[in-house]
Structures are given as C-alpha cells and as structure tokens.
C-alpha cells in the first residue's frame, strides 16, 4: 500500500490521457458485460436443456410437420419413458414486434415432462379444466402486464382457424416461474385439443416430439432407434439431444456466440493497443525519473513492479467501473423488451472479466515494464 501514492501519481501525471485510456477500457468492459447478457439470452436454453430429453423432428426441416401417430410408436421404443408433442404457433400480440414463442401441447404430460416450469396446484387444475386456457411465463406476463383471468388475442402468422380467422383467443389460467434463474419464462403454452379442433388445416399433425429417456447414457442409441423406426417412411425423423436442438434453433439467426466473441475480441485487441501505447509513453516520458528511483535504491524488479502496477491500476479501474456499469445496464432489462428468455451476466463471466483485466494489464504493461527494468541508471541520467 505504501507504493500506492507513487503508482497513482504516475497515472495522474497526464490526467487527460489516463482518463481517456480508462474510458476506453471502461467501454470495452461495458460491452463485454452487456454482450455476455445477450449471449446468455441465446444460449441459456442449451445449458439448461435436460440431459434426459431428446427432440424428434422431421428429417427435412423443423417446419415440416410429423403425424401425431408417431407418439405411440416412439413411446413403445425400449428406453423411452414418456413422449409429448409441441407445434410452433408463430403468433404475435397486438403488433408484429410483440413476438414470442407459443406452442400447443397436452398440459398434463407436458408439466410432467418439464418440472422446471413451476405453477401451483390450483393453476394446474385450472389449465386442465379450461380448453382455451394458456400457461404463460412470468417474464412474458410482466412484459405485457398479463395476469391470471385475462383474455388475450394472439394473431398467428401460420395457423388460421376453420373460419379463416387468424386471431385466436386464450384465457390466461397460469403464470409459471422457472426453477432456476436461467429457466425460460418468456413462453406461452396452450392446449393442443383446442388448437387441433379449431385449426383450418393440418389436422393430426404436430411440430416435434420431446422424448424423455430412462438412461441419459443411452441417448445416442435411443435416438438412432427412434430414427430407424421411421426410416424409409414419408415422415422420416431426426432425433437429437434437447441441447443440440435448441442450439440449432438459435443458430437459425446465425452463430450468436461466435459473432459476439468476434466483436468483443476486436474491441479488446484495440483496447490492448491503446493501453500499451499509454504505458509505453508513460515509461518513455519518465526515463530520468525511473533512473532516479533506481539511483536512490529501487531495484530493477521494484521499478518493473511499479510500471506493471500502474498498468494494473489502469486496467482494474477501467475494467471495474466498466463491469459495474455493464451490470447496472443489464439490470435495467434486456434491449428486446423481454423477448430474450433470460438476460443476466452469469457468475463465470465475472471471473472471465477478472482474467481479462489481469491479461490486459500484463499484455499492455509487460514490455514497458521490461524496458524500465533494463534501464541503466547512468545512461538514463545523461539523457
């Protein structure tokens, strides 16, 4: 601590340059924090996907439907514990930008399949009793101000009713919470029987199956068995773990993780150059002062430590404030207004940020620090 003032005074020598460098680092870490939260929004489903759940969809593509009759055949395959089906509804609420996931399903087996969606017994009973009932996630309900008892119209771009009307009416009977902080609570589930009877086409067809297996260690084997069951039929299937399915779904928008990594990488590379430049100037301008410090007894390593210390201070101040600001911005809510299933900075990303702070300090400060360490006192004092 006794060297703190010396370190601080080194940084305060050129206040404007130091402040601008800190601001550059700060912006990089705000970006890192914010993009981390966005990335989490896209990837959390993959991380929280059930290890014991498989998804069976049409082999050609997700938009091709499968016969409802597949359910019984899948159920009979050895190692399968339970099967449910869902279908992409593709609706919006009030305006096209109010987009979120809606899916018809069979309530009772659905709730057994997804224990991470938590509702109370009364809501469960109500959903089973109400044909037009819908169970919505708490985040979705908060986004649109919905509550149990509300009747909401959903305009489907894919599914019209038998009378041609594309606007479907639902009664909100349950609002579910997630068992974990990252559980997706932005979805809207409603009853398949209501959907199947009212839809204008596609009777008996469903989007995909979610299959729970008894032994996650046999996932690959069972997936092959399911696909073999429907091989050479008009409706061949592709079965994969739930995590891979969700990842594939997210990748329809592009590899978000890679895009964000490239953005953050480019920003940090630029910041590294800015910080290294600042540190290089800091040492070059103070050659004689560093020589004086050595002359009065500071060791070569001591001077190296001082320069690295300044680099750490720059990095820690900029990175720390940047992370705090990023955390604050993330706490204000996601930029899509609630469309992302989750929006937070995972704990491990704080550790990554801490590692980045250290790496930035070392990368930016090492060369100038070595230059300071090698400084010959007599030569430097003559300059």
């Amino acid at each position, binding site marked *: 601590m*006794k060297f703190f003032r010396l370190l601080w005074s080194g940084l*305060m020598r050129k206040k404007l340059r130091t402040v601008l460098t800190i601001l550059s680092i700060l912006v990089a870490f705000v970006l890192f924090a914010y993009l981390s939260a966005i990335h989490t929004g896209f990837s959390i489903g993959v991380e929280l996907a059930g290890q014991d759940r498989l998804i069976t969809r049409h082999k050609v593509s997700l938009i091709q439907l499968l016969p409802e009759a597949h359910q019984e055949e899948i159920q009979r395959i050895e190692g399968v514990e339970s099967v449910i089906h869902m279908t992409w509804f593709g609706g919006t609420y009030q305006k096209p930008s109010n987009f979120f996931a809606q899916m018809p399903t069979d309530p009772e087996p659905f709730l057994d399949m997804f224990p991470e969606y938590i509702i109370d017994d009364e809501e469960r009973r109500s959903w089973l009793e109400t044909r037009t009932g819908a169970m919505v996630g708490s985040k979705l309900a908060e986004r649109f101000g919905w509550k149990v008892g509300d009747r909401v119209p959903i305009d489907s771009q894919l599914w019209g009713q038998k009378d041609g009307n594309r606007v479907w009416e639902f009664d909100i009977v349950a609002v579910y919470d997630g068992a974990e902080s990252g559980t997706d609570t932005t979805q809207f589930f409603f009853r398949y029987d209501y959907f199947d009877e009212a839809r204008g086409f596609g009777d008996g067809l469903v989007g995909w199956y979610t299959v729970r297996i008894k032994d996650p260690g046999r996932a690959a084997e069972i997936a092959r068995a399911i696909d073999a069951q429907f091989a050479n039929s008009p409706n061949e299937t592709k079965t994969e773990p739930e995590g891979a399915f969700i990842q594939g779904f997210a990748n329809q928008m592009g590899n978000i993780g890679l895009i964000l990594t490239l953005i953050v990488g480019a920003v940090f590379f630029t910041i590294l150059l800015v910080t290294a430049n600042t540190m290089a100037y800091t040492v070059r301008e103070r050659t*004689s002062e560093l020589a004086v410090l050595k002359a009065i*007894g*500071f*060791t*070569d390593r001591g001077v190296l430590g001082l320069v690295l210390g300044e680099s750490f201070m720059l990095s820690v101040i900029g990175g720390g404030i940047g992370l705090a600001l990023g955390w604050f911005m993330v706490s204000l809510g996601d930029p899509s207004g609630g469309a992302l299933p989750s929006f937070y900075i995972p704990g491990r990303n704080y550790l990554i940020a801490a590692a980045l702070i250290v790496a930035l300090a070392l990368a930016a400060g090492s060369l100038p620090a070595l230059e300071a360490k090698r400084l010959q*006192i*007599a030569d430097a004092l003559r300059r």
Partner: protein
Amino acid sequence: MNAAVQPERQHHQETLVRVGNVDKVFHRGSEEIHVLGGLDLEVPQGDFLALMGPSGSGKSTLLNLIGGLDKPSQGTVEVGGQDIGRLSGRRLAAWRARHVGLVFQFYNLLPVLTAQQNVELPLLLTSLSRKERKSHAATALEIVGLGHRAGHYPRQLSGGEQQRTGIARAVVSDPTLLLCDEPTGDLDRKSGDEILDLLQALNRQHGKTIIMVTHDVHAAAQASRTLHLVKGKLSMEPEQ
C-alpha cells in the same frame, strides 16, 4: 599526480572511499572512448571533496562509479570497506539506499509529488511506518530550511528550494556518503551560495562525507579540498 590524491591533512581519519586503478571505457559503435584510465582516489570519512575538470573529463562518470550507479571497466571501488563492484544488482540497490545520498544538477524531483512526498521516497524502501516516514521527511526538510514548504509541489518551488528538497531527499535516510553532481549548476549565485552553505553545514555539523562535482571555482572553494580530473586522471592542479 594520479596517485597523489591522498588528503594531506586527514591522515588520521579512516578512509571511506577507495578507488583503485579504475578504467572506464564507453563504447560508441565500434569506437572505444576511454574516460578514466588507471585512476586512484582515497576519500576519508568526513571529507568534503570538490572534483573539477572540463566537460567530458569524467567527473560525473567517477561520481557514478563511487555511487554504484555504474561499474568500472577495470579496477575496484570500495566504500566503507565494501567492494561495490562485487555486489549483485539487487544488493547494490540496497547498498545505495542505505549508504548513498545523491544530489543532481537538475534536482530530479518527481513533479507529481509534494516536497514532503519526494523526500519520503527513499524511506519507502525501509521498514519505517507511515508516521515514521512522515516524521523523518519533516525533519529532513527542517534541516534544509523548507519545513514550511513541505506541501508544495516542485513547480511551486524556486530552483534553490527544489535543490534543498533534493538535498533533504538525499540525507533523509542518513547515508554515509553524499554525492553531488553540479548541485549549484542550475542556480543563480545567491541560491547557489545557500546550497553550498547547506552542504558545508551537513559536512561540518552532521559529519557527512561529501564528494561534489562542479565547474564552478567559487563552489569548489567551499569544499575542504579540490581535485582536478585531467585526461582521465586526478591531479591537484587544473589542466594547463
């Protein structure tokens, strides 16, 4: 005389600095520049020695060798019986911190630190507490007559005051030897005289051994004795 640099009036005193047959060669590309050649010098404890000589004669180089800021190409430099050429870099730095106080022509204060903080710098390398460091620095500033300017930054001090601060920094850790490189070279006569008076007081009242490099005959006259560096060797007489 090369070897004729034994002080005549201080035979009874213990030798603090002993420079033996020192050469110093600088390399500029393929060119070798011999600055000091076979130089011998003895400086007794409590001496105030002025080193004079024309520019490039090697005065500052000799001072740097005695202060452990540079190493001789050949020969030995002993201070207090310690052959400082044998010390490792780390031990040499520790030795400098303990035994040598340096005063520079251009003060070399850190502009972002106050006078008090500049004087405290050498004490950061000791085990003294913050309170003790402050107390020692305040005392050193009092000795040089700058107690009232402790909180001022170098830019707020005159040249003479900055040099006094530099001297306070040099003596704050109570070193054995004070090495001054043109301490009045950047000052007007009045301020220069004040600095010389201060150095004399440190020598006479506090017993500090001082070696001072100077161009100025008037400054050299304040020392106990003067030696001249002529063509890399020491002489009692200036270059003719």
